[in-house]
């Protein structure tokens, strides 16, 4: 099937097999930040933005991208570096395998929620699993990041 969509700012026209998941398709296009951690939509590692909304690319067909704008971390390098620095300053980057999906969702959250509480943060990101950090470092990083943003440091 033919699809036409915007990937990380660039228009792409392509032929895709109908049952290709968006995840595999994006990786085949060199978007290696998109990771797979499960087959059951449980881990959130595959999160990308579709028209600004986080979606699980493992359970979204590539054809659904047609006419849409898809952003992966490759297209959000500045934001990734900005928040990622806070994560790194906690040592909470750890193995890093969950980082792209998690950071995609953090970026989406900061756009969607204004001044979120700890509970709201945890709930927004509940679908992003991480086996290394125990999540507490994530929370410290997010709070420091939000503070810096509010304080106009970023």
């Amino acid at each position: 099937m033919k699809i036409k969509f915007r990937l990380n700012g660039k228009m792409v026209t392509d032929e895709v097999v109908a049952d290709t998941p968006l995840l595999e398709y994006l990786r085949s296009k060199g978007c290696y930040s998109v990771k797979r951690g499960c087959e059951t939509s449980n881990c959130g590692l595959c999160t990308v933005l579709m028209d600004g909304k986080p979606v699980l690319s493992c359970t979204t067909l590539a054809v659904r991208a047609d006419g849409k704008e898809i952003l992966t971390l490759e297209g959000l390098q500045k934001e990734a570096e900005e928040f990622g620095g806070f994560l790194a300053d906690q040592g909470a980057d750890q193995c890093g395998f969950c980082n792209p999906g998690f950071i995609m969702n953090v970026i989406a959250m900061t756009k969607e929620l204004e001044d979120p509480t700890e509970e709201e943060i945890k709930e927004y990101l509940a679908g992003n699993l991480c086996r290394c950090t125990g999540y507490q470092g994530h929370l410290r990083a997010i709070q420091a990041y939000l503070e810096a943003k509010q304080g106009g440091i970023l």
Partner: protein
Amino acid sequence: MKNQFVNKPVRKKDAMALVTGKPVYTDDIAPKDCLICKVLRSPIAHGIIEEINTAIAEKVPGVECILTYEDNPGGRFTMAGQTYPEPSPYDRLILDKRVRYVGDAVAIVAGDDEKAVDKALKLIKVKYREIPAILDFRTAKDNEILVHPEEDWKSLCPVGADNKRNLCASASDALGNVDEILADCDFVVEGVYHTKANQQAMMETFRTYSYMDTFGRLNVVSSTQVPFHVRRILSNALGIPKSQIRVVKPRIGGGFGAKQTVVTEVYPALVTMKTGKPAKIIYTREESQIASSPRHEMEVTVKVGANKDGKIRAISVYTLSNTGAFGEHGPTTVGLSGHKSIPLYSGLEAYRFSYDVVYSNVCSAGAYRGYGATQGIFAVESAVNELAAKLHMDPVKLREMNMVREGMIMPAYYGETANSCALDRCLSRAKEMIKWDEKYPCKDMGNGKVRSVGVAMAMQGSGISSCDVGSVTLKVNDDGFYSLMVGCTDMGTGCDTILAQMAADCLDCDLDKIVVSGVDTDVSPYDCGSYASSTTYVTGMAVVKTAEKLREKICENGAALLQVEKEEVEFDGNRVFVPGGPEISLKDIANQAMCNNTNALEVTEQHSSPVSPPPFMVGMVEIELDKITGQYEILDYVAVVDCGTVINPNLARVQTEGGLVQGIGMAMYEDVIYNEKGKNYSSSFMQYKIPTRLDMGTLRVEFESSYEPTGPFGAKSIGEIVINTPNPAIAHAVFNATGLWFKELPITPEKVWRGLHGKN
């Protein structure tokens, strides 16, 4: 030597690549023309392949090869990544005629794409002769059904293994007469504690790719903790010389011990050997859940005896461990269940520790953070908490009376002395942090809910004494930057960074001047790998030794260039100088070493330690439990850790938090469940739930450091100990809320509800 970086929370060197999603993991860098490999798995728990027909499957367009037991190239080997001769028995073939668990490998299919391979997998016809399976490990020892009846089964070490008795290992160790002392005690508690298999569930599943290089050698790139062991294991499995194999480790998406077993490497390697083509295998989450290297299920029987004043006099531990279909890490994990639980208590008049490790027809177990200590500490710490309840004594006070302290000899820990031990400070600090005296044992919230607290202590080791080897190469390059080459494996833990922190301090230079590289078995210095909490302690010491030698060499070259004696000069990191006299910069020394020089500015040193100093910690938890539903949640978890000098406080803290949450998962709901036919029901993240960020309450971690005289900068280990306290602390808190002891993990709300409503 200035302390510029050690004990500082510096960023991990690879941090920015990781947070920006750079392609640094195995599957990101695999050649695009790799054959895709998949494994056909046994649907039965025990049987013999009588017939396997691949003719139709081979006709599927795109299928390159289908390999069965007839193609098995080498003899029996173990997949356990351990120092040779491995204690784990040589009991497997890459592909065997006998299948031993649901999920065991039956055939390998390789093809151009996934669809072709999937289709071929479905078209392979296998006829099995089923054999009754051993699914309850309590019935395994001396069962007439044998999991490994084969004559070429081999145990390389005297671990008490006997395949004709389904025994993977068996031994005992004792001091004094335990039975006599127990009989003489005022109080004895006795319990049988059952811990289940658990999955490490690292986010990056097992994966490997392989190809033949310019020199006709097999190159293997793998997400592994043990590259050098992989080389040996592949040589055993494939029947080719080690010289023909090179193993490279890129970034790893988590290991936690899982990748101390060579789970996937053999499959693409065999395909590449047979076809000459690059091949890769990426395990699905399902495969990672059912055909991997989970924690050993154990049943630990504990007796603790004490006088009425609270003096603990004797402890006995018997552990029955389930190694599953193969013996990976079977003989070694079990040892920690006693050797790293009993020594928490000092002044025992007697102890006994004995164990059996048995084969059964479930997935082979492996190494998982804590490595047996987790299971043993759940049992012993729970028994001590029960003892406190029987004595009507505060369990913290009971521990204060009996715990091991600095300078004490630990007879059950191979007679080692606790040269560095701040366990007492950990306990008092944890008690303060959680406000133990106010909260113990519980508070009724008046709405059907109870808040209660629980406590546990833990220890681990720092590397395997007189066994683990770490080596490091340091060299000076142009302009005076350094290469630090290591053979240990950073799996997200940050060891590349902390070793660079140590090197920078030893060489009085900036962290940026140290370039770290690892691991490539062709060029990295030998290291047994990152497991057994060894890297900071063992490889760290190798860094210290290497840097010392390199400083000497820098001084030698500097002195020669200055035309003075070596003894006259000093090195301050930037220059070699005679105090009050001439000097030459490191930059000049480095550049001049590249012309007409015979004293290479490169050093390799190795370290191994005769002791394995334990880190210690205390964990205290506060939970809120609903007495009507049995549901409970973690409100607060405080952990105070003595890992000696903390090399990087951020990384040590996150290690601790990560380990705590894995422990919380194990205590509360992570469970590998088999049905009556041996099929693993916990085959996805849908069924096998690991904690999300809504499940861990608030974690608060502090350090109470001792100084370990045999460690680099006074450091001990941190990686594993951190998983050990949640099980007993949570079980204790549940008791304090309900009056019920739960001795089988996980302690699910359903079990609590059944207990509370008399439905057990």
